[in-house]
């Protein structure tokens, strides 16, 4: 019964999305205020119904209703209840419904929190969101229905959830990632609404900015969580593999970052208009393309869903309609827009342009690295692989100038900046960064590792510069303590995000160069030494989980004769899915991780063990979290909270606008 209610809710949601796509758009052309005013209740209803559908699916999973095909093939009665719930978005069908629900949630949020927008704009934005909803709900409903039943014959036991997904990471990673992905639909809708309306003043950018920030915040967290999850679950200590699916989430992030910076220019200076609109379209287009790549099976990836060409065809058609249509509209409308802003070569505008140039180049690198093998093969030139060595090589060359620029950026004023006043503080920052990086490395590690040194230098430069700039700005705003309180939240946000980037760069460089590992065969009582840590295997015993068996190893870690920690590593076997999973034992500290993975049993009895010491690997995720926190701070800035105009006033404005247009 419950799955049928879910199905029905999804059908209602589909009907509402169709109305949302049509009615306000009609209103925006005919000037019908009543049609425009309908957008808000339609959007909220859309969310209520798709939310109900998602809840029904979760209910079916929670109660192990194996008459539903989706439940039978992705869950089992032995699965712990929290994984039963998350299994509802573990499959293609379920995750599509989650995607739809989140898209509807964003639509409803836009409807609720855009009261300060003119009615026309509001209607157009929600209309565009509605159109995107139509596409995805139809896909979910007609091409990958999560509620399909297998009556009258159904299995007594499900096939269980993919063990890789039975992890805390699965509970939080997909929702966060999707909130981020789909969130770019809002900036996209703003851009399209502006294109339809043909008005590109800076108010458009001001409206779009907080929404973009919010989407970017969640995407950052989602990607970081995915990386952290892979690190813990895959058992080889990797945190990024440049897999097509990872890249699919990284591209919208890069363009989203560029968009945030470009929006700042458009809001503050009224220039870069056509560029910002293009980025807003590109960010969401790349999200859509990511969905296509993951679900169509055109690329081989460790994470991709079971693929089906007809689904791929549908998504490609939708992609063509949405992205092709918006780019065409862009070409038609944007060539008339010119910005008249004046700025010198050494100005914040130009530096932010530099930021955009590097981010876009990085996006192109990821894009080519992901899709070039496909192009190469389709052109009959043979199969090639593109992976870590290629990306590392190119990102190495991109990060250096980008970081240098990033350290400089916040100091430089809009319009025009004279060099001399900057020389003193920047020299100071550079000297400080040099001392810090070289001093630290000389004291603790070694200066021989070039990459580590470079990473620390760049990180220290960006971080010190961000701190120095805040300090200077606070001084200007009336002294040390007073100035700090007077600084805008968005300024703090920027600073924090830049420090986050610095932390990330240091983390990546240090982990890449200074990690050590050993593959050993251990009997009980054996000790392996790595970087001054002595790992002793004290016990190995059989595991008895709710839906898995396997072995667990206990290790004691000593350093200089003192006990550091106790580690517990597992190797699980999931009989229903016939897969083996490594649960690595990790002891995390800010300066290093100890990481042990239990391998297969060898004769003896002894066990293959992989032991790592990974310096600064935490900094990678810490950097990501700082960036997200920065976005949160910026989001809390006062200027995004203005009193909304009363509906009556807006109705009068809209009517007046249309009457005016008729007279003209």
């Amino acid at each position: 019964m419950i799955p049928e209610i879910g199905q029905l809710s999804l059908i209602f949601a589909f009907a509402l999305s169709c109305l949302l796509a049509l009615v306000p758009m009609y209103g925006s052309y005919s000037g019908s205020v009543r049609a425009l005013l309908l957008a808000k209740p339609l959007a909220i209803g859309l969310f209520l119904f798709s939310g109900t559908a998602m809840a029904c699916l979760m209910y079916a999973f929670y109660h192990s209703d194996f008459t539903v095909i989706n439940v039978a093939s992705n869950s089992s009665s032995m699965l712990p209840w929290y994984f039963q719930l998350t299994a509802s978005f573990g499959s293609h069908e379920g995750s599509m419904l989650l995607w739809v629900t989140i898209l509807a949630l964003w639509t409803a949020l836009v409807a609720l929190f855009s009261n300060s927008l003119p009615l026309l704009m509001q209607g157009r934005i929600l209309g565009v969101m509605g159109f995107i909803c139509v596409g995805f709900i139809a896909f979910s409903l007609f091409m990958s229905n999560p509620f399909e039943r297998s009556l009258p014959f159904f299995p007594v036991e499900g096939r269980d959830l993919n063990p890789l997904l039975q992890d805390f990471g699965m509970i939080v990673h997909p929702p966060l990632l999707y909130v981020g992905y789909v969130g770019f639909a809002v900036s996209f809708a703003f851009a399209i609404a502006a294109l339809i309306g043909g008005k590109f003043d800076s108010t458009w950018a001001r409206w779009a900015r907080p929404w973009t920030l919010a989407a970017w915040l969640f995407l950052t967290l989602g990607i970081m969580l995915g990386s952290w999850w892979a690190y813990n679950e895959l058992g080889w200590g990797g945190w990024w593999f440049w897999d097509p699916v990872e890249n699919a989430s990284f591209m919208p992030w890069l363009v989203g970052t560029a968009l945030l910076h470009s929006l700042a220019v458009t809001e503050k200076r009224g220039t870069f208009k056509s560029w910002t609109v293009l980025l807003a379209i590109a960010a969401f287009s790349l999200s859509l393309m990511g969905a296509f790549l993951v679900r169509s099976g055109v690329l081989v990836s460790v994470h991709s869903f079971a693929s089906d060409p007809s689904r791929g065809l549908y998504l490609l058609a939708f992609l063509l309609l949405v992205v092709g249509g918006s780019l065409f509209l862009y070409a038609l409308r944007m060539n008339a827009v010119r910005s008249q802003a004046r700025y010198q070569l050494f100005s914040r505008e130009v530096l932010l342009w530099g930021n955009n140039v590097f981010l876009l180049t990085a996006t192109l690198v990821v894009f080519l690295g992901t899709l070039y093998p496909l192009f190469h093969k389709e052109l009959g030139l043979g199969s090639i692989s593109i992976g870590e060595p290629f990306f590392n090589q190119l990102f190495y060359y991109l990060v250096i100038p980008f970081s240098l620029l990033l350290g400089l950026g916040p100091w430089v004023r809009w319009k025009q900046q004279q060099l001399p006043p900057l020389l003193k503080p920047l020299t100071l920052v550079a000297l400080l960064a040099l001392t810090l990086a070289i001093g630290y490395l000389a004291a603790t590690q070694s200066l021989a590792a070039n990459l580590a040194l470079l990473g620390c230098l760049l990180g220290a430069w960006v971080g010190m510069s961000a701190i120095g700039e805040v300090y200077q700005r606070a001084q200007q705003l009336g002294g040390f303590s007073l100035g700090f309180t007077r600084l805008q939240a968005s300024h703090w946000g920027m600073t924090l995000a830049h420090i986050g980037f610095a932390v990330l760069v240091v983390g990546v460089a240090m982990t890449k160069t200074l990690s050590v590992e050993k593959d050993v065969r251990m009997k009980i009582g054996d000790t392996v030494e790595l970087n001054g840590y002595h790992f002793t295997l004290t016990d190995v015993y059989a595991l008895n989980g709710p839906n898995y068996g396997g072995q667990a190893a206990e290790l004691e870690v000593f350093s200089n004769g003192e006990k550091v920690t106790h580690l517990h590593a597992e190797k699980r076997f999931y009989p229903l899915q016939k897969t083996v999973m490594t649960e690595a034992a990790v002891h995390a500290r800010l300066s290093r991780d100890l990481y042990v993975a239990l391998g297969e049993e060898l004769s003896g009895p002894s066990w293959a063990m992989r032991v790592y010491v990974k310096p600064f690997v935490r900094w990678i995720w810490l950097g990501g979290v700082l960036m997200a926190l920065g976005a949160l701070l910026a989001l809390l800035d006062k200027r995004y909270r203005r009193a909304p105009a009363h509906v009556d006033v807006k109705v009068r404005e809209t009517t007046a606008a249309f009457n005016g247009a008729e007279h003209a």
Partner: protein
Amino acid sequence: MRPKMQLFSRAFARLLLALCLCPAFATTAAEELLPFKDAQQQALYRELTAELRCPKCQNQNIADSNAVVAVDMREKTYQLVQQGQNKEQVIDYMKQRYGDFVHYQPPVQWSTIWLWLAPLLLLAGLFWVMLQKQQKVQQLQQTDAVDPELEQKLQAMIEQAMAEKSSKEPD
């Protein structure tokens, strides 16, 4: 004769070491799964198994995969590294059998050069756009605010500088 001697003395040293250490530590040192002659060879092996792609798997390098092919390739890599082959030789060996597909770094050839060229062109192109814009802005500003006096002064200064320069330079 010599290698045998060495072997003997090494075994003897190990025995001595074991005798000395046994009372001090209750534990024995774990042995490496794949022993190498030196740290360089070990590092090379790690690098190679991370950069070689398992041809059967979804998208994994041979270090992380347990498919039969990946295990065989790891073993072959181990043998070749121990024989003293360098990175290029091992990769060539694998490419002869499994094609370019097997290496995560694409070869540089006319069909793949765009992987490096396209980002470079984009980078250059976007900076060029900014410079073009700047030139336009400069022109606009010049037409906006032409101060005849300043212009004259500047012109005079330029001429003076030119004259000085040419007088210093020998013909």
